[in-house]
């Protein structure tokens, strides 16, 4: 769209004389070389490395040369299997012994080396079990989608509300805008630690929640597996919403005032004005905000690494955290690169799907 027209406009204009052309060529090379060299070395090479390391068993700081392992990393990451395991209702150990036998790394069953993802025990003591090559990957994937699916509408919607507020003709708009934007210039590490304090049992969040929700039991929010992720979602939206508010605002300011004028003449209410003038005018902004928030959200890492280290019970472990943990902490660079490649493919797919879904029908 915008990009294509930009590229097309870039075609030669033909106002330089031909004698200048060769000079222009050499000069261009000198101007562009540093950037192309740096981007080539620090972006293109690592991208190629990510794809190639993903097919090896490379270790960080290991004297052994990495060996090619084909699709092993990828098949371990994505493999899933469902199985019913026999058990004894009076003795839960039977079930677990059977399960251990089934997944023993040295066994020749197809579930060898797999981990339990979910377990549903039935009345007769047997259990339906979903096995995964890397159970933490699937948990991380689920958590990443949970985070992105909650943050995108919440943060995007809140940003629009704030943009509408500061676009209204009231006094002190600049002050309001400044205050809403303050968390954006505050670093995520500072924000995370500040909110660790607020999410403590005797912190500000519990005090506010007790005041608002009757019967709220003050608790350490970040150690509760059900609350840790919502807490990080809320905090992340708080930190980032000012950024997207500004983007919505610049979209709002492109809508011609005459349209509102005309709508008012026709007797449209404020809600009707929003529905028929504001919202249609924000279409491209909407697509942009949605995609940009989703991409940022899927890269969730800093908050998790500072606040919860993926816990409690892996409830806040995300794909990037999982890749970091495998590659950096456990030194499995090859495996970590495979996760990064899958992460990259997911991000691109989500962007494409969002663009498709939001495309104009005409």
């Amino acid at each position: 769209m915008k990009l294509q027209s930009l590229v097309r406009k870039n075609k030669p204009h033909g106002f330089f004389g031909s004698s200048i052309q060769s000079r222009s060529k050499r000069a261009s090379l000198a101007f562009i070389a540093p950037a192309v060299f740096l981007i080539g070395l620090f972006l293109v090479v690592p991208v190629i490395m990510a794809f190639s390391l993903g097919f090896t068993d490379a270790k960080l700081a290991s004297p052994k040369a990495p060996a090619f392992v084909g699709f092993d990393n990828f098949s371990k990451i994505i493999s899933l299997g469902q199985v019913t395991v026999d058990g004894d209702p009076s003795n839960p150990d039977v079930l677990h012994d059977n399960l251990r036998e089934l997944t023993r790394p040295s066994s020749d069953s197809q579930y060898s080396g797999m981990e339990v993802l979910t377990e549903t025990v039935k009345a007769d003591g047997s259990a339906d079990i979903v096995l995964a090559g890397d159970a933490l990957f699937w948990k991380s994937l689920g958590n990443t989608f949970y985070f992105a699916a909650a943050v995108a509408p919440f943060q995007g919607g809140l940003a629009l509300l704030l943009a509408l507020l500061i676009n209204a003709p009231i006094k002190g708009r600049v002050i309001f805008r400044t205050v809403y934007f303050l968390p954006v210039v505050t670093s995520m590490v500072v924000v995370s630690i500040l909110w660790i304090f607020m999410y403590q049992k005797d912190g500000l969040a519990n005090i506010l929640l007790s005041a608002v929700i009757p019967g709220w039991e003050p608790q350490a929010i970040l150690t509760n597996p059900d609350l840790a992720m919502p807490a990080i979602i809320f905090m992340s939206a708080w930190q980032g919403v000012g950024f997207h508010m500004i983007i919505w605002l610049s979209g709002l300011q492109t809508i011609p005032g005459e349209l509102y004028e005309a709508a008012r003449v026709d007797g449209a209410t404020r809600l009707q004005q929003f529905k028929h003038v504001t919202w249609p005018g924000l279409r491209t902004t909407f697509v942009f905000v949605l995609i940009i928030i989703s991409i940022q959200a899927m890269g969730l890492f800093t908050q998790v690494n500072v606040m919860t280290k993926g816990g409690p019970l892996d409830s806040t472990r995300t794909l990037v955290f999982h890749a970091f943990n495998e590659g950096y902490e456990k030194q499995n660079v090859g495996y970590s690169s495979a996760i990064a490649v899958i992460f990259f493919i997911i991000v691109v797919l989500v962007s494409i799907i969002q663009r498709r879904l939001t495309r104009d029908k005409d």
Partner: protein
Amino acid sequence: MHKKKFPIGKIVIYALSAFFCFIFAAPLMFMISSSFKDPQTIFTHVHDWRAYFPVGEVNFDQYVGVLNRLPLFGFLFNSLLVSAVVVIGGLFVNSMAAFAIARLRFRGQNLILVFLIATLIVPFETIAMPLLVLVNSLPTITAADGSLQFTTGWLNSYLVQIAPFVASGFTIFLFVQYFKTLPKELDEAAIIDGAGYWTIYWRIIVPLAGPAFATAAILSFLSIWNAYLWPVMVVQTEALRPVQVGLDYFWGATSEEGTAWGQIMAYSTIITVPIIIVFILFQRAFVASVASSAVKG
């Protein structure tokens, strides 16, 4: 824009605005206020309005304490040095590339622009791990004992915090868009006057592109100053640690004792308030740079 006769709409807008002001300002006011209080006072004040204001027994003990405990000025120096080199180097490298793309003609021009746009879809998280492997195998030259020595690995250096972030496809793209709005006649006139390309770039384009430079500088400064994932991976030595990683380590080291909240708030305030002041002084430029980042779509 929406002029209504009855003020109820306005009242609602003011009420909502004030509510959100509280939501966004309160945690930061708490941070700043708490940096002047000892931990006992912080916990006594937490239940009422005093949590958000520097009232009661306020002093600079927490600042003195954290500065005695950590080389915080060293961390600040590291972050400032890395940010300054990335921002200034980036302004040069990226605007020069953009100048060639937007104002000159050469074969493969479109291809390079398409390539640069393609780089925008690669999240840094994807390449962090291979990049670590890469920088770990790059050569370095160190001067030791009066002779130059070649070693391998960039870990624990300023270079590793700087070099990967100087060139940026996004920043080049910002500059290209801006440079294309400047009239072509300027270049033509300069060429007739015998000016070389460097003169055109440095004497004509750069002075006219102030807003683009401000935007690029602000966005890249914020991202480097606040960088976390990369410095965590490549800097282990305390002497080279940037402020954000230093804060994370400090938090990790003191989270067990539970008594260092005042010092943590003092540290957070030291690394946040200067940025907030700069933001308030130049907020028009900040807002404009965020708005223009929307071209990324």
